[in-house]
């Protein structure tokens, strides 16, 4: 089955250039193509016509690296739930469809070119405290720390975040609370994460708020997250942040208790 599509793509020559949509007719789209393969085909056509190809971020093309991501017909990563742009296949479209493609929009994610944005703001949140301080070589035997399966599962659910930025793109406020909440939850529920728990949440939230908007609980982020991260991580982050600001740090560290997190 092959389809003919009309594509409206945001083209912007550089960070400071004005951008606009350009319209392309794309004939012969195969339903087994991924969305990015369809863009590849468009690019080959453009180069053939002597026009510069559309710049878009992509790498693994199997939904895990988090590089790709564009807003497709007003929704980050397109119409499917739990799917990145590279895993969206053209069989989800019909002959004659018009598809509008736009970059993530957020002050913290400035456009570099066309559909490519700079997501270093996420890295800076991690740098603020999104780690467990464990210098190489000092670790004791891994099985000396028992972690209930349920706790490990909660951590893994949160750690599955691929850092694509769809949550920010979808949020009407350009808030990064789902991303930050996921990263904080993944570490804060684990026993290894307890010593830095309160300092971590305070540092990461402060860094986040320097760059992004605030969460007003639209839950739009959860709906578009390709990794299925739940807004529960935002609630967990909020709780830890409030505690870190209200309570005495020393008493909090003494209370460190992970059992209730599962």
């Amino acid at each position: 089955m092959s389809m003919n599509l009309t594509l409206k793509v945001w083209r912007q020559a550089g960070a400071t250039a004005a951008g606009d949509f350009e319209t392309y007719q794309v004939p012969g789209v195969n339903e087994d193509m991924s969305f990015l393969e369809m863009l590849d085909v468009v690019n080959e056509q453009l180069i053939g016509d002597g026009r510069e190809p559309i710049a878009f971020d992509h790498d693994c093309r199997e939904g895990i690296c988090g590089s790709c991501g564009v807003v497709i017909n007003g929704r980050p990563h397109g119409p499917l739930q739990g799917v990145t742009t590279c895993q969206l296949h053209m069989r989800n479209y019909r002959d004659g469809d018009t598809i509008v493609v736009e970059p993530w929009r957020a002050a913290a994610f400035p456009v570099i070119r066309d559909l490519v944005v700079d997501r270093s703001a996420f890295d800076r949140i991690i740098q603020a405290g999104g780690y467990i301080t464990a210098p190489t070589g000092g670790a004791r035997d891994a099985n000396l720390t028992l972690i209930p399966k349920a706790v490990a599962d909660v951590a893994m659910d949160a750690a599955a975040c691929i850092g694509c930025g769809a949550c920010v793109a979808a949020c009407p406020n350009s808030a990064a609370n789902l991303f930050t909440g996921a990263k904080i939850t993944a570490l804060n529920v684990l026993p290894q994460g307890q010593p830095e728990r309160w300092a971590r949440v305070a540092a990461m939230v402060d860094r986040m708020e320097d760059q992004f908007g605030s969460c007003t609980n639209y839950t739009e982020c959860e709906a578009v997250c390709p990794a299925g991260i739940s807004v529960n991580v935002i609630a967990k982050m909020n709780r830890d942040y409030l505690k870190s600001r209200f309570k005495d740090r020393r008493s909090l560290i003494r209370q460190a208790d992970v059992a209730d997190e599962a």
Partner: protein
Amino acid sequence: MLTGSSPARPGGPMTPARTRPRPHTWIIEFYSSAIGKKAVMAVTGLLLLGFVLVHMLGNLKLYYGEPEHLNEYGHYLRTIGEPILPHSGFLWIMRGGLILAFVLHIHAAVSLTMMNRRARPVGYKGGRTYSAANYAARTMRWSGIIVGLYLLFHLADLTWGTANPDFEHGEPYQNMIASFERVPVAIVYVVANLLLGIHIFHGAWSLFQSLGWSNPRFNVWRRYFAVAFAAVIVVGNVSFPLAVLFGVVD
């Protein structure tokens, strides 16, 4: 708090960011953060929810159909705490608390809205769709502003009396009847309370998230709670003007 848009990457290394310094006084530090402001909105929202509920329950005395029940109740409110507190003392403490809650609720909302505007200076040129954000969530700012304006009218109408030509101090029952018998006023009350319900529908769910009250066991009840609360308030409050208008009470 968002300090403005990140500059377009100038090239070169990823420079380590420095978090903007925070104020030292813990309560100001707390309120200076967006999560802190949301917590304040949640707590003040809870207080206002409590007030709205009690206010509605108190007004149910309208359905005795005789003025003395409601009027006595209004009088009783002024006597709470006597003789330790002066006359109306408790009422003014409550009013002070409510005014503070309102001011904080509105201040936090305004400053977060400004922050969020800065966070997305350029919107989606090709339009956007919503997958989860419901009508109530997306219109919180408008429903909030309209309910706020309605509140001023409501005070002018039934507390200060300036918007109600037949107003008599100390006779809330008669004042309500006199007010609600005017059709346009009754419509204002009905519409405003529907908007209040919509505001509560999102707010009463949202406050759990903002305060971090999340537990997979009861999370589904957070939504039920919000729906039930909003429904009770709307049904109660809308019933008063309708009851007067259609002559159920007079």
